[in-house]
C-alpha cells in the first residue's frame, strides 16, 4: 500500500487548490470553541482542534432538510435527492476517528432493508479527510469504546508524525482523486516516515489510556433498570436535548409538512428530534409512552447501549465526549458508564484513570 507525507504548512495551499473542485469544510474557530464550517480562510482552519460543538453528522443528516416538494394543485411529488447529488462535492477536512465511526454508524442506520436515499446521496458527494488523534481531547473516551481507530469510512487519513509533517493513508478511490488533482503537495512516504508513523501510534496508545470497559454494557443495563441513578440524573437533567443533538450517532428525526404562503406548494421537511423531548413518544389521545422526564433520559442510555446493539450491531456511542461538553447540567455519560460498570462485578478495572 502506497502511503504519503504532506507538510503541515502546505495544508492551507492544499485547501485552496481543492476549492476549485470541492467545497471544503473543516474545524474553524467560533468564539470559545470550534465548529465544522466552510473553510473561507484556510489559515484559520485549525487541525489541532480539540473537538467541535456539532459532529459532522450535519453534512449527512442536516438539522432541517426538505425531503420532497409537493404541488398542491396536482399532487405531483418531487424528491430532493437529485438536488443533493447536484451540489458541489464536499470535502470534510480533519475529521477525528470518533466522528468517522459516527458516520459509519449512521450509515448502518440509513442503509439496510430500506436505504435512505438522502443520506446515501450525501455520502456520495462527500470526501472525508480523517485525522488521527494522538492526544486525548478534554472529554473524550473513544478508546474505552474502541472508536479511536478506523478501518474504513475515510478517503484520506492523516497522522501527525512530526512538527512539520502528516503521514497520509489513502482509503478509497475518492482519496486517490485528491492525490491526482493536488499531487504537488504529497510526497511518497519513505522508510523513516513509516517508522515515525509507528512511533506516533505508540504515542497515541500511551496517551489514550482506558479504565472503562463497556463490553457487557447491555447486561449491565439490564441490571440497572431500577437503579437510583436514573432518578438522580432525572433530577439534574432538564431534557434540553443538547446531548442528543451534538452526538455523532443520534439520528432521531421528526417529519413535518410545511406550506408556502400561497398555499400552492408543500414541503415535507425532516428535522432533528430527540428522545428527551416531551413529544417524542406522544401519540394521539395524549397518551405518552414516556411521560416522565427521567424516563426519557434513561431511555437515551438504553437505546444507545442496548437497543443499538440489536438494531445496528454495535453501541451508539463513539466516546467523542461532545454530550459531556454540551450538557448545561453537567451530566457526564462517562461518569454514568463508570457508575454502571460498578454494577458488573466481573468487569475488571485496571489501575489508572481515564
Amino acid at each position, binding site marked *: 500500500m502506497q502511503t504519503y507525507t504532506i507538510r503541515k504548512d502546505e495544508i492551507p495551499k492544499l485547501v485552496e487548490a481543492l476549492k476549485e473542485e470541492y467545497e471544503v469544510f473543516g474545524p474553524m474557530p467560533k468564539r470559545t470553541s470550534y465548529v465544522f464550517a466552510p473553510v473561507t480562510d484556510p489559515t484559520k482552519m485549525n487541525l489541532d482542534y480539540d473537538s467541535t460543538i456539532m459532529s459532522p453528522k450535519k453534512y449527512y443528516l442536516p438539522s432541517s432538510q426538505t425531503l420532497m416538494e409537493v404541488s398542491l394543485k396536482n399532487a405531483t411529488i418531487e*424528491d430532493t435527492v437529485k438536488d443533493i447529488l447536484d451540489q458541489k462535492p464536499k470535502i470534510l477536512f480533519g475529521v477525528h476517528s470518533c466522528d468517522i465511526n459516527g458516520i459509519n454508524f449512521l450509515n448502518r442506520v440509513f442503509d439496510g432493508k*430500506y436505504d435512505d436515499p438522502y443520506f446515501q446521496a450525501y455520502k456520495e458527494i462527500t470526501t472525508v479527510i480523517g485525522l488521527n488523534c494522538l492526544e486525548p481531547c478534554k472529554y473524550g473516551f473513544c478508546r474505552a469504546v474502541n472508536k479511536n481507530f478506523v478501518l474504513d469510512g475515510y478517503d484520506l487519513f492523516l497522522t501527525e508524525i512530526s512538527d512539520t509533517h502528516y503521514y497520509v493513508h489513502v482509503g478509497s478511490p475518492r482519496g486517490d482523486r485528491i492525490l491526482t488533482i493536488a499531487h504537488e503537495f504529497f510526497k511518497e512516504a519513505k522508510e523513516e516516515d513509516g517508522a515515525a508513523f509507528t512511533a506516533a501510534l505508540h504515542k497515541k496508545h500511551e496517551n489514550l489510556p482506558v479504565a472503562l470497559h463497556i463490553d457487557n454494557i447491555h447486561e449491565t443495563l439490564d441490571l440497572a433498570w431500577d437503579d437510583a441513578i436514573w432518578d438522580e440524573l432525572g433530577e439534574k437533567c432538564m431534557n434540553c436535548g443538547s446531548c442528543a443533538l451534538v452526538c455523532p450517532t443520534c439520528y*432521531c428525526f421528526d417529519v413535518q409538512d410545511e406550506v408556502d404562503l400561497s398555499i400552492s406548494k408543500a414541503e415535507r421537511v425532516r428535522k432533528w428530534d430527540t428522545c428527551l423531548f416531551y413529544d417524542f413518544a406522544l401519540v394521539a389521545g395524549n397518551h405518552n409512552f414516556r411521560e416522565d422526564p427521567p424516563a426519557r433520559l434513561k431511555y437515551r442510555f438504553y*437505546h444507545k447501549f442496548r437497543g443499538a446493539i440489536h438494531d445496528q450491531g454495535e453501541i451508539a456511542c463513539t466516546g467523542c465526549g461532545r454530550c459531556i461538553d454540551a450538557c448545561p447540567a453537567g451530566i457526564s455519560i462517562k461518569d454514568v458508564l463508570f457508575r454502571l460498570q460498578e454494577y458488573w462485578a466481573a468487569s475488571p478495572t485496571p489501575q489508572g484513570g481515564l
Partner: protein
Amino acid sequence: MQVQLKKDNEYVPHIAKLIKKTQMTEKETLFEFMFEEPEIRDLFTYNPGQFVQVSIFGIGEAPFSISSTPTRKGVIELGIRKTGDVTEAIHALEVGARSGIRGPYGNGFPMNKMKGHNLLFVAGGIGLVPLRSVINYVADRRDDYGKVTIFYGACLPEERVFVDEIEKVWPNIPDFEVHQTVDECHTTWQGNVGVVTTLFSVCAVDSANTMALICGPPVMYKFVVRDLLKLGFARDEILLSLERRMKCGIGKCAHCQVGHKLTCMDGPVFTYFEAERLMESI
C-alpha cells in the same frame, strides 16, 4: 407471499384516490383508497396486521393499519379515528380526492404459523381495525384455520366499529363465534356490559391449539394477557399489535423504539413472549 414494491425513494408515497367513505361512528370512518397507477394496484399486497403511511400533503403523514384483507384485492380499507391534524384532514377528504400512501410496513400477523390453529381475537375499540383484516382473511381461507372466537369491547354501543360485520356477517360464517360488550350500560343495549375481559366468563375459551390476537388501547393489554395466561395460553401463543408514535415507518426515525426493538420493523405484531422482554412495552 409478499412482493416488495421496489422504489428508489421509500419516503415518496404513491398517489391514491379516495373512492369511498363510510362513517362508522361519530369519530371513526372507513376509507377506501385505490392507487392511481394500475401497476402499483396490481403489485401492492400485504400481510394482515401491516400498516401504511398516509399523506395529506401540506398537513402531514400518519400510520394506519390496513383493515382490508389481501384476499380481496383492489382497494385498501382504512378505519380511521379523528384525533388530530392528519386524521381530521383525512376525514375532510371528499371522494375523488388524491392523497399519498406508502407501504406496507411492519411484519403483520404470522398467517402461516397460525394455520391449523383455533383463533381467539380480543379487540378493544378501534383495535378491531387491524384484526378485521385477519378475520376476513381467515374467513376467505376458511379451510386453513380452525375455530374462530371474536371478543369485541367498546366504551359505548355507538362507539363500536364494523357493526354490520360483527352482527350480521361474521356470526354466519361456519365455526365463527362473536361476543361483544360495552363498558357503560345503555338503555337500548341488550348485550353484555363490562370491560372486554368480562367476556371470558361469558364464553368459555379453550387454550388448546389456540392462538390469541389482541389489539386495543394500551391499558387493555395487561388485563387481557393476565386472563389469557390464566387460561393456559403460552406466551408465544399470544399476539399483540403495539402502537407507538411513528414518523418514517421504515426503521429510521426511532420514534417507535420499544425496548431494544422497533415497532415499525420488528412489529407492530409481537408475541407476548417478545413483548415481555421489551422494556416499557406494555
